[in-house]
């Protein structure tokens, strides 16, 4: 099999490609190939084991990151009952406020006056 675009070591035709070869006809060829394939099988099993360990580590790390993200989100956008936080609040400039039309509800304080 001809590899046109080699991106990594895995794409190089090595012993992994041997299963595409024809069935050996002599006992010597068969034993040789058997030894190679047993060795290859053991290597692949080790690799799979490493991948499994890495997968578990990665999943654990993803959970930690998600927990931290949720914490930061709460700090940046606290619920009303939580009270003030140390995080500086991002304010709109007056121009942005005017353009967005916000502030109708809370942009100013009103003092009642009877006439």
């Amino acid at each position: 099999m001809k590899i046109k675009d080699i991106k990594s070591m895995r794409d190089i035709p090595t012993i992994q490609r041997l299963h595409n070869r024809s069935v050996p006809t002599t006992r010597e060829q068969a034993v040789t190939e058997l030894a190679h394939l047993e060795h290859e099988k053991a290597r692949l099993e080790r690799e799979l084991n490493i991948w499994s360990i890495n997968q578990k580590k990665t999943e654990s790390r993803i959970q930690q990151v998600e927990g931290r993200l949720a914490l930061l989100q709460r700090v940046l956008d606290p619920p009303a009952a939580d009270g003030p936080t140390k995080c500086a609040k991002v304010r709109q400039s007056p121009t942005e406020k005017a353009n967005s039309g916000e502030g109708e509800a809370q942009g100013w304080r009103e003092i009642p006056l009877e006439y």
Partner: protein
Amino acid sequence: MAVAARTMVEGAPTALSVRPRPDFVETPTVRELTGRALAYLAAGFPVHFRGPAGTGKTTLALHVAAQLGRPVMLIAGDEEFATSDLIGGQYGYRYRKVVDRFIHSVLKYEEDATQRWVDHRLTTACREGFTLVYDEFTRSRPEANNVLLAVLEERLLVLPTMSRDDAYIKVHPDFRAIFTSNPQEYAGVHEAQDALSDRLVTIDLEYYDRETEIAITAARSGLPSEGVNRIVDLVRDFRASGEYDQTPTLRACIAIARVTAMQGLQPSAQDPRFVRICLDLLESKTAFTSQARERRAQQRKMLLSLIEHHCS
């Protein structure tokens, strides 16, 4: 400083939520004036109530503003008023210091100070679409009101350059302006500039008709209507006589009626306490000079005859 309620330096600006008192009287005359003013305001024209003291200009302006249903910015004209008192200015500095240790081995400091711009009432009203009530605007020097020219005509508020990134503010479509002035006042007032007057729809106010004065006096004093009629007729006749330096107004009617009601008196010429109240509140309408002694004596004689005529 003539500013009625200073805009907060930090935080939200303060606006007024105006509403009529429980004893507010809306007679057909008041209703007709309100309707006229609202028609001009709806068409986008600022309204100017002009009239002598005691004709209810400010109350009418607030009543019209209340009908618009928007928060009100109230400004009282004053000699010391400058443009910055209307639009705002640079007040203080804002310091900023940033210590960046994103990479632990690299320490980066940033420090700067910028001047802080604070909006005042006209700017806030233009931004948010409030109703501006500029009471006695001729008490401010004419040049202080120059900034209103572009606001009322081009609907554009021009701020001083270098003050902000946005030196121009497009006036909110809900922004409306109501002015009041007293053309007969001679103390502490200026002529209104033609350019500003030309932009205003001026409604001249006279003293209210008898029915309106009676209704307002009765509502504000709590005195029975028969007594109110006597007091209002007394003050109106005194006003018609012209024997005074300061015109007796509806305020005199309300004051006499309220004190009479609170003292439990009857508006009668036979009650010396009521007569004393009338003299206290009406005699003071004449200047107190040595040359006017004879005139004051004649005025007292006339007032006593008016009290005798209306309250006997």
